[in-house]
């Protein structure tokens, strides 16, 4: 650009035009802000009235007999045609259902089905937009719509993480341990967050056989292996001890860490020996875990190994070794103190462990 063209671009006319455009856009945004606030306030009033109706309806349901198969529907007209109103009612029903059980919960489900809200959820589940689809799955599952189960199952391996996670949650919610079948074909990550969520969900069911557990522990999907290890730990699946030991050879540090924890909960008489062998090839985080598990499952035979760990370079390993020694036999605090006489670090560690024992 030559200087003439440049200064023409920077001419007052161009600049005033830009300023006017920016000012106009600013006014437009301010207008949109106030329009948004106005709409929000109007919707707030509608929502308040609907909340009142819902509360009345819930109070009425509470006083009804448990076998009341017929329920009266609250009259949400004239607002019911509005999409946001229906969404608001669905959200409220779900929240209410989370806190009740028995016939009240059934009444909420029937209201959801009879008022047409279920059709909204089904439409959302079939939407091409991921956030609507995951929300639809969530609503159908929360409202126990089992007939949607086969559709939801298809989504457990969806390439969209949010759709996939909701579908997995739904399947476990419906079928408990049987729902874990989706792990057989899972090609995508199963985040730690999702693993925690599924474990919490499974907690509500009675423990069942997991016939596919050995194959999950050998899965090519590292997330499935991690989750299977957690299942093994929580539900103490002693029969897969061999497969868990195999996991100690994984390249994935997280898998090995979980395998160490899991072995601690399904320990055989030779488990601590296996962990001791593993110790020398591990990262510090995993070595700490091995020491913890040795403290839980170890015997007098392991004391010498643990004493050796008191001379590790990392103080956290020394501390954990000291804890493990005392966990195996509390009387070994004297052994620690004996070693501490010549080593100020062990002295400091021994004092801490002694305090921990008494508190």
């Amino acid at each position, binding site marked *: 650009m030559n200087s003439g063209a440049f200064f023409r671009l920077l001419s007052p006319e161009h600049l005033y035009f830009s300023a006017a455009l920016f000012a106009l856009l600013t006014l437009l945004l301010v207008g949109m802000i106030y329009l948004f606030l106005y709409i929000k306030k109007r919707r707030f009033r509608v929502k308040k009235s609907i909340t009142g109706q819902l509360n009345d309806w819930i109070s009425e349901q509470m006083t009804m007999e448990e076998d009341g198969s017929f329920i009266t529907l609250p009259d949400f007209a004239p607002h019911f045609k509005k999409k946001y109103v229906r969404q608001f009612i669905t959200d409220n029903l779900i929240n209410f259902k989370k806190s009740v059980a028995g016939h009240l919960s059934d009444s909420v489900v029937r209201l959801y089905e009879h008022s047409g809200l279920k059709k909204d959820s089904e439409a959302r589940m079939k939407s091409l937009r991921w956030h609507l689809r995951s929300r639809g799955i969530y609503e159908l599952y929360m409202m126990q719509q089992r007939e949607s189960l086969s559709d939801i199952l298809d989504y457990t391996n969806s390439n969209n993480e949010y759709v996939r996670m909701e579908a997995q949650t739904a399947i476990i919610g419906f079928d408990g341990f049987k729902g874990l079948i989706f792990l057989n074909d899972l090609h995508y990550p199963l985040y730690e967050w999702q693993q*925690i969520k599924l474990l919490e969900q499974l907690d509500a069911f009675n423990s069942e056989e997991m016939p596919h557990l050995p194959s999950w522990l050998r899965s090519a999907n590292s997330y499935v292996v991690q989750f299977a290890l957690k299942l093994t730990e929580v539900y103490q699946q002693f029969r897969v001890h061999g497969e868990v030991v195999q996991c100690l050879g994984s390249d994935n540090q997280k898998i090995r860490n979980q395998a160490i924890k899991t072995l601690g909960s399904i320990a055989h008489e030779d488990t601590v020996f296996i962990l001791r062998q593993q110790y020398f090839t591990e990262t510090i985080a995993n070595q700490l875990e091995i020491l913890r598990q040795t403290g839980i499952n170890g015997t007098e035979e392991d004391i010498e190994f643990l004493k050796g760990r008191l001379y590790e370079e990392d103080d956290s390993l020394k501390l954990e070794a000291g804890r493990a020694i005392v966990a195996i036999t509390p009387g070994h605090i004297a052994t620690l103190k004996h070693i501490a006489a010549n080593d100020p670090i062990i002295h400091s560690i021994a004092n801490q462990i002694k305090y921990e024992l008494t508190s």
Partner: protein
Amino acid sequence: MSAWNIFTMLLTYGIFIYAVLLIAFYLWIGLYSIGAIRKYMRKNSITDYRLLASSSHAPSVSILAPAYNEGANIVENVRSLLSLYYSNLEVIIINDGSKDDSLQKLIVAYQLENTPHHVQYKIATKEIRGIYKSKNPAYKKLVVVDKENGGKADALNVGINISANNYIVCIDVDCILEQDALLKMIKPFLEETDKKVIATGGVVRIANSCIIKDGRLVKVNLPGNYWARMQSLEYIRAFILGRMAWARMNGLMLISGAFGAFDKEIAIKVGGYNPKTVGEDMELVVRMRRFMEKSKLPYKVSYIPDPLCWTEAPTNTRILGRQRNRWTRGTIETLKFHRIMFFNPKYHLLGMVSYPYWFFFEMLAPLIEAFGIVVFLLMVIFQLINWHLFIALLACIVSFGYLYSAFAAYMEVTTYNMYRRRTDMMKLLLTALTEPFVFHPFVVWAAIKGYIDYLRRKKAWGEMTRQGLGTPTLPDKN
């Protein structure tokens, strides 16, 4: 062409290109943040965070809160931290050699006793005088460390050394956290895939004029004080737009020292906080990122837009000036420490985009603006100014600033809408009108003083006197 002509031409073109790039960056930040916030809100609209609060499978977390002469509110602040929803939690308060009675108050209030505790100084720090714990089960999460005064970075490093958990959340002890703040901050770490999440930042909001009871935020009000209100708008722009856009691109270089979560292992590997800078929060994030880049490990710095942390903003020019002075020194120091990354392709996005952006548009901006003002004054004195062009240019720049502020306000209203009263929004927008003529020149002035102090090698933080976040009977006035 004379040397003077070449100089003026370079200056004109240089400033023009600078201004165009700056506006382009702002436009990009504004537009790019929309997608990031929308996705975040959609994906978390049905998330039940409560399960993490009570789950035994949830990762263990240590909160690190340094305290220096916080005796006035320390007991209430700690109570607020102990009441956060999270079961696998350890709250470490580091008394950084306070001259007041902070420690004594904590000992009495929480029935603390000095305990034998072995500390490995993985990060070198000042000496620890004592570690206090309570035998009362109600306070079993609490650990109070008493140490020699060494500054905020040193205190945080002590916290890292003491911490027993894999994740650390560093906060200012006087901040008010939302009850579910930790649950939301830890979630990104639990969603990592092939990219390791090394840190998560959270939004900090202004708590002035808000109603706080028993350490909890009860009602959000727009600050009555002009300076605090202006900072509310500034924080909305910075946190909802700026950091969300940078985080979406994985180019975030700053997580506020008031509220950030870190992977402890990486924080230790890089040597913890740097006590030689007053911008220790930014410096740690940059160093962690640099470490990951050098190690060729895929990583991510995550950011969440929920308003989770509330802090008291300076309400007068004296304190605000000190704060901005310190921020400027911190930025210069951090960028100087890591100057090797400047347009260095080995550091990918960090070296080619994030660092240059901070260098040109955060660090140099006050200098360029101050230079512009000086040149303008000289041109006025020597009657060289083309007033017609000047007014047009000023109108253009000021109106763009208004547009950006209005956009930030729009994003706030359509997302978290913390200021619900229409009058509050009107006040905020009217305050924005004064920014180019009152607040912004002051901030530039404070930054220039920061440069001067940097050149004088001043290392002090500058005392940050606070009024305390209680229940205000009346909104504070300027």
